[in-house]
């Protein structure tokens, strides 16, 4: 995802071969009509896997939630992995090709309720808005740096999917006008706890690593991944998240003692 387009990860609707599709979903917006979210395409992955593709991020998260509900209720055929992506849910490791084929035939007929969002606890992540790309992001958004912090902390997020490193969640929730490109040149080292933006996502680096996200802050107190903890990952797909400003930045910088 290195393209400098406003939403590098978002808006490439696939040329599907399934009869039900052919929709050019165009740019996926946060106000996508429900009919779009319900449209899905099922693609084979090897002999015992499926990739279900949806038109929108909301539709993808809703289908993922439905799959977890059905798995918990025991009505989903046993499957090793359920891995959401930006516009897809991967189901890998059915008992065999027949189980995968049966579900592939059944999926387009599913009634998938829209996300409610009110049913899970919210993880709060304290953030100091001191990232090196704050000026760049402020310029891209056309607001002040303090306003970037205010907007980022005022948004309600969900973990759409994880990847890149254990415990790294791609959080959705920012409006489309706040989408930003990745940095043209990735940093060779981003510190653990760095809070970044890329495309329509925000996220927190669970450990030090190379990275191309625009860094706007630091979450000094939050351990996103601890293999000795259960669960090891603080964030998993579907988790709701809020960022809480640490230093009272909204009070005109009065609390900047440290």
């Amino acid at each position, binding site marked *: 995802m290195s393209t400098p387009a406003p939403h590098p990860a978002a808006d*490439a609707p696939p040329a599907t071969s399934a009869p039900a599709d052919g929709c050019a979903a165009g740019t996926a917006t946060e106000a996508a009509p429900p009919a779009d979210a319900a449209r899905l395409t099922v693609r084979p992955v090897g002999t015992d896997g499926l990739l279900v593709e949806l038109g929108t991020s909301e539709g993808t998260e809703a289908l993922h939630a439905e799959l977890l509900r059905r798995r918990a209720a025991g009505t989903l055929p046993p499957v090793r992995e359920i*891995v*959401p992506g*930006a516009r897809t849910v991967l189901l890998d490791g059915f008992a065999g090709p027949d189980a995968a084929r049966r579900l592939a035939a059944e999926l387009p007929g599913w009634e998938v309720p829209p996300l409610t969002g009110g049913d899970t606890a919210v993880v709060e992540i304290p953030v100091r808005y001191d990232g090196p790309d704050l000026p760049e992001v402020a310029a891209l958004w056309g607001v002040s740096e303090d306003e970037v912090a205010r907007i980022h902390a005022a948004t309600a997020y969900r973990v759409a*999917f*994880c*990847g*890149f490193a254990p415990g790294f969640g791609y959080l959705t929730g920012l409006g489309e006008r706040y989408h930003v490109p990745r940095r043209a040149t990735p940093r060779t080292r981003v510190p653990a706890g760095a809070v970044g933006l890329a495309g329509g996502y925000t996220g927190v680096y669970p450990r030090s690593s190379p990275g191309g996200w625009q860094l706007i802050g630091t979450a000094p107190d939050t351990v996103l991944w601890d293999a000795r903890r259960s669960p090891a990952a603080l964030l998993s797909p579907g988790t709701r998240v809020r960022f809480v400003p640490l230093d009272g930045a909204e009070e005109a910088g009065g609390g900047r003692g440290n």
Partner: protein
Amino acid sequence: MGTEALRVVRAGALTTVQDLGRPGHAHLGVPHSGALDRAAHRLANRLIGNPETAATLETTLTGCAVRALRPVLAVVTGAPCRVTVDGRPAAWGQPVPVPAGAVLDVGAATHGVRSYVGFAGGVDAEEVLGSRATDLLSGLGPSPLRDGDTLALGAVSPRQRPAAVDAAPWPAPPRELVLPVTLGPRDDWFTPEGLRTLFTGDYRVSAASNRIGLRLEGPALARARDGELASEGMVLGAVQVPPEGRPVIFLSDHPTTGGYPVVGVVHPSALDAMAQARPGTPVRFTPAGGARSGR
């Protein structure tokens, strides 16, 4: 927990602790990991009487050597190699007693890439999400072996017996990899010409291959569209095609999500052979067509 039983005398090019990996956590960004040649890993455990979930050492091309700090029973499978105990030749593919103080040397692979060294009781290391496997992509699990490290072994159950076999069946490392591929999920990102290239092109295993992926040298696949995908889930055996067009086949430590299109998925029956294919090995893709080919 086990007690210290081995000291690493020669870690070799890359020796890691491996077991059957940590499936079921891909949605958290945790790779599957685990032994690349699962059949060889399982065989080592069976020969020595361990459950197949016990951890073994996976070597890379140059083998490794360990000094026993107490009497241990060991076995070497996978890539064939010279095995010695204090310099004296010992059997490959059969349980070998290593007395306290003696050095078990697992030599350089004569064919193939990865040998598996099993010990009665299994290599003990802290479990992460139910597995002791070293994951070189995410850094989970124990670090690769270094000279001077000590390793613990698990307890041996009193009823545990090595298997009574004269010779274990073992498939030769591949002279040529023939990989059955099921097209999709993103074969529509390639032109018909590009798909023809996949099934007719002469590919070779690149020296840049590792536990994350088998990289190939050969003709590039022509794409029907530019750009990248929105990140989506990736599977073991996925044939991912980066922008320069040469396929990479995902192995145990592959990333859980990715943005390059996957043209097809190699049948799991071919994974063990890929683990043993040296750089330069010719590679051919064939349509899987539902046929289950053995190794």
